[in-house]
C-alpha cells in the first residue's frame, strides 16, 4: 500500500517542459512503491537544502561477492524510513545493450517485487542499474537475477563491467567483433569482476573504430579501439554520387583530412594510404563510398581515467595493432602481466595510468615485456634528465676489453 502523496513543489517544476521528466518516472513508481515515495520526499528536501541527503557508503553485498552492490543510506532515516537503506544493484548488461521485450519485462517483475521500481538504463560504466532497495532484499533479488541468467557487475577496486559499442551487430565500421570480445573478457574475468583485489578499479572498453562511441580512450584503463592497416576501400561510383548530390568533396572531405593524404580532381579521389592516420573523417562523411580497409584489428591503449586522484588522463598507445580473434590469448597474456605488476606495485587508489606515470612508461614496458616503439609517444622526451641505470668505471673490465 502506497503512502500518502508528498508535496513536492520544487520537483513539480521539473515535470514541465518537453524533455522526458525523471520526476514523472519517480512519481509513477511512487504511486505503488513506498521506497520511491520516500525518495521523492528526500529529493524534494535536497532541492530545498541544496545538498545531498545520502550518507557516505557502507559495505553491503551478496554472499561471496565483493562488488556489484553500492551501499546507500539516508541521513534523514526518521523522516524517510523507506529509504533508510536504499542500495544500488549493478547488473552486468548484455554486450551492446541489446534486449528483448520479454527479458526486460522479467527484469521489471523482479524489481517490482524486490525494490523501488526505479532503474537507470544504464549507469555510466554500462551496467543496468536497479536503483534502491533494502539490505534484506539483496540476496533474494540476486537469486532471481541469476535464475533469469543475469549476474552482478563490478564496483570498487575490481574489474568493472566491460562495455562496448554495437560493433558488427549494426555498424559497418566495426574493425573487430566488439561484442564477442566484451562477452569473452567479461566471462574470462568473472572472479576479478566480482572480488575486488586490485589497487583500484580497472575498466575495459571496446570500440569498433576510431570514432570511439563508448569513449574508451577517455575512461578505460584498457581502451581497445578498432582500426585497420591496409587501404581505405573506395567505391568510385558512390563517390561520384556524393559529388553529384552536392557534397563539396574538396572542402568538406579532403579539406578536413588531418594527414593531408587525399586529393580530389573533381572526378576521382586519390588516397596516400601510407600517410593516412585512420581518423575516420572521410569515411564518416561518405559512408556509402568509403570504408575501413580489410586488414582489420585494433589498437590497444592504456591508462585513461577521470581526475581523481592525480588528474585526468587519456589512454596512450600500448600495442599499435593487434588482430583480435578467439581465443584472444595474446591479449589476455598482456592483461595478466599488467595486472600482476600493478596489483603488486600500485598504491591504494592508484589507477594503472597513474601507476605508469609514477614508475615511468619505459619501466612499465620493460616490466611487462613490451618493446618501446615510436607509435607510443606524441614525440620523444624534451628534457635531458635520463635515468641511466649503468655507467662505466675507469678500470672496469668493459673498458679494458674495448
Amino acid at each position: 500500500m502506497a503512502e500518502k502523496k508528498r508535496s513536492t513543489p520544487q520537483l513539480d517544476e521539473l515535470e514541465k517542459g518537453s524533455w522526458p521528466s525523471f520526476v514523472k518516472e519517480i512519481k509513477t513508481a511512487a504511486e505503488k512503491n513506498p521506497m520511491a515515495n520516500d525518495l521523492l520526499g528526500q529529493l524534494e528536501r535536497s532541492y530545498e537544502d541544496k545538498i545531498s541527503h545520502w550518507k557516505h557508503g557502507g559495505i553491503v553485498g551478496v554472499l561471496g561477492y565483493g562488488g556489484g552492490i553500492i551501499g546507500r543510506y539516508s541521513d534523514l532515516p526518521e523522516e524517510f524510513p523507506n529509504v533508510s537503506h536504499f542500495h544500488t544493484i549493478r547488473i552486468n548488461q548484455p554486450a551492446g545493450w541489446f534486449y528483448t521485450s520479454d527479458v526486460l519485462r522479467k527484469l521489471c517483475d523482479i524489481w517490482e517485487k524486490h525494490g523501488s521500481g526505479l532503474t537507470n538504463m544504464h549507469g555510466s560504466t554500462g551496467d543496468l542499474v536497479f536503483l534502491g532497495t533494502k539490505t534484506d532484499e539483496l540476496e533474494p533479488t540476486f537469486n532471481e537475477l541469476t535464475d533469469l541468467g543475469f549476474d552482478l557487475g563490478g564496483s570498487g577496486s575490481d574489474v568493472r563491467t566491460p562495455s562496448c559499442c554495437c560493433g558488427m551487430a549494426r555498424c559497418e565500421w566495426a574493425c573487430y567483433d566488439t561484442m564477442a570480445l566484451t562477452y569473452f573478457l567479461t566471462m574470462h574475468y568473472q572472479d576479478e569482476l566480482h572480488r575486488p583485489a586490485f589497487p583500484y578499479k580497472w575498466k575495459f572498453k571496446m570500440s569498433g573504430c576510431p570514432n570511439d562511441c563508448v569513449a574508451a580512450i577517455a575512461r578505460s584503463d584498457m581502451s581497445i579501439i578498432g582500426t585497420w592497416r591496409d587501404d581505405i576501400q573506395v567505391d568510385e561510383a558512390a563517390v561520384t554520387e556524393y559529388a553529384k548530390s552536392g557534397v563539396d568533396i574538396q572542402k568538406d572531405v579532403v579539406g578536413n583530412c588531418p594527414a593531408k593524404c587525399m586529393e580530389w580532381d573533381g572526378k576521382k579521389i586519390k588516397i596516400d594510404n601510407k600517410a593516412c592516420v585512420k581518423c575516420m573523417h572521410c569515411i564518416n562523411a561518405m559512408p556509402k563510398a568509403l570504408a575501413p580497409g580489410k586488414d582489420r584489428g585494433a589498437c590497444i591503449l592504456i591508462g585513461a581515467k577521470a581526475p581523481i586522484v592525480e588528474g585526468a588522463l587519456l589512454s596512450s598507445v600500448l600495442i599499435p595493432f593487434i588482430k583480435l580473434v578467439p581465443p584472444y590469448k595474446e591479449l589476455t597474456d598482456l592483461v595478466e602481466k599488467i595486472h600482476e605488476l600493478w596489483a603488486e606495485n600500485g598504491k591504494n587508489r592508484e589507477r594503472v595510468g597513474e601507476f605508469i606515470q609514477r614508475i615511468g612508461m619505459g619501466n612499465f614496458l620493460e616490466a611487462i615485456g613490451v618493446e618501446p616503439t615510436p607509435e607510443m609517444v606524441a614525440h620523444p622526451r624534451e628534457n635531458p634528465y635520463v635515468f641511466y641505470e649503468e655507467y662505466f668505471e675507469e678500470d672496469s673490465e668493459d673498458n679494458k676489453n674495448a
Partner: protein
Amino acid sequence: MPEVQPKQKRKTDIGPPHYEKFLPPIIKENYGKWKYHEVLKPGVMVTVSETGARLYTVRAGSPRLLSIDKIRAYADLADKYCNGYLRFTSRHNVEFLLTDESKIDPLIRALDALGHPVGGMANSISSIVHTQGWVHCHSSATDASGVVKAVMDDLILYFTEMKLPAKLRIALACCLNMCGAVHCSDIAILGIHRRPPKVNRDRLKATCEIPSVVSACPTAAVRPVTVDGQPSVEVIEERCMFCANCFTVCPAMPINDPLNDGVSIWVGGKVSNARSEPMFSKLAIPFIPNNPPRWPEVVEAVRNLVEVWARNARKYERMGEWINRIGWPRFFEMTGIPFEKVHIDDFKHAGTTFKRSTHLTY
C-alpha cells in the same frame, strides 16, 4: 547458532546472458556484413547489408532514470512495432530495431505520445550523459537529473533536428569523480565543491584509517595531528582544491556545503579521433551557484555556448576544433565569458598550458 536451511544451489559467477539471445534475426543474419548506413531523418537511420537487408533504427531520448512502468511501455512498443527487439545506447537513448519501414512513422507518433522525443543522431545534441546527483549520490555537489532536464528542455530542438555544424556532446558529472566521460565533452557541466572538508574527530577515530586519509590527498593538504592526546588529521586549507578524495576514503571529512557547492562549465573536449585527436574539455565558466529547481543560469550559459559555436563553426567542426581555429581570446570575446585568474592552470605541468608563441590575433 541458527541451523542453515538446505536450499537450492546458489548460482554465482555466471556472467551476463550471451548477447545473441537478444539479437533480432536480421542482425544475426547480417552480423559483420553491414555495408553502409544513412540517417534518413532526425532519429531514424537505415543500416544496409551487403545482402540488401535493411535494418531501421529509431532512436528516442530518455531521462536515464526510468520506472519499470516506462520500461514495460518500451517493451510494448517493441512488441507492436519491431517483434520485441530494442537496445539502449552509450548515451542513455533507447533504440527500436525495425525491419518494416512502414512502421517507422507510427512508432515515432507512439513515442511522442509517450513523451519521448525521437532524434539525437548526426549533427544534433544527443542525450546528456550524466551521473546520479542528489537522487542517489553522497558526494554530489549539484543534482544531475534536474540540471539535465532543464538544459534539455531548453535545447530539445537541437535533439529533434539536425541543424548544427557537427555533433555536440554534453555531459554532466555531479562531482570531480566524474562517473562518465565528462572530461572529454564538447560541453561538460561539472559539480564542484569550494569549501575544504571539516574534520569530524569523533567519527574519524571510529571509522577511518589516518594514514589512508593522509595519503588520499594529492596536494598533501591533509596532515596527521594529535588533538587532546588523540590521533586525528587537520586540513591545510590553502592547499585544498576540493577534490574530495579524502571524503571518499573517510566519511568523517564531509565536504558538501550548500553555500559553496555549485556548477562549473567546461568546453571543447572530444573522444572521437575524427579529424583532430581526442581532447580534454577546458574551463569556460568557473562557478555558477546551485539554483534549483531549474538552474536558469546554467541553462542560459549552455545555450549561449551552443549558439555562439553553431553560428560560427564550420561544417564538421566540433566545439574544440572551432576554438582551436579561432583561439581562446576570441572564444572568450565571442561568448562574453570573462577570463579570470582561475582559468590559468596551476596544478602539475601547468606550464604546458601557457601560450608559448606569438601566434595571437589582434
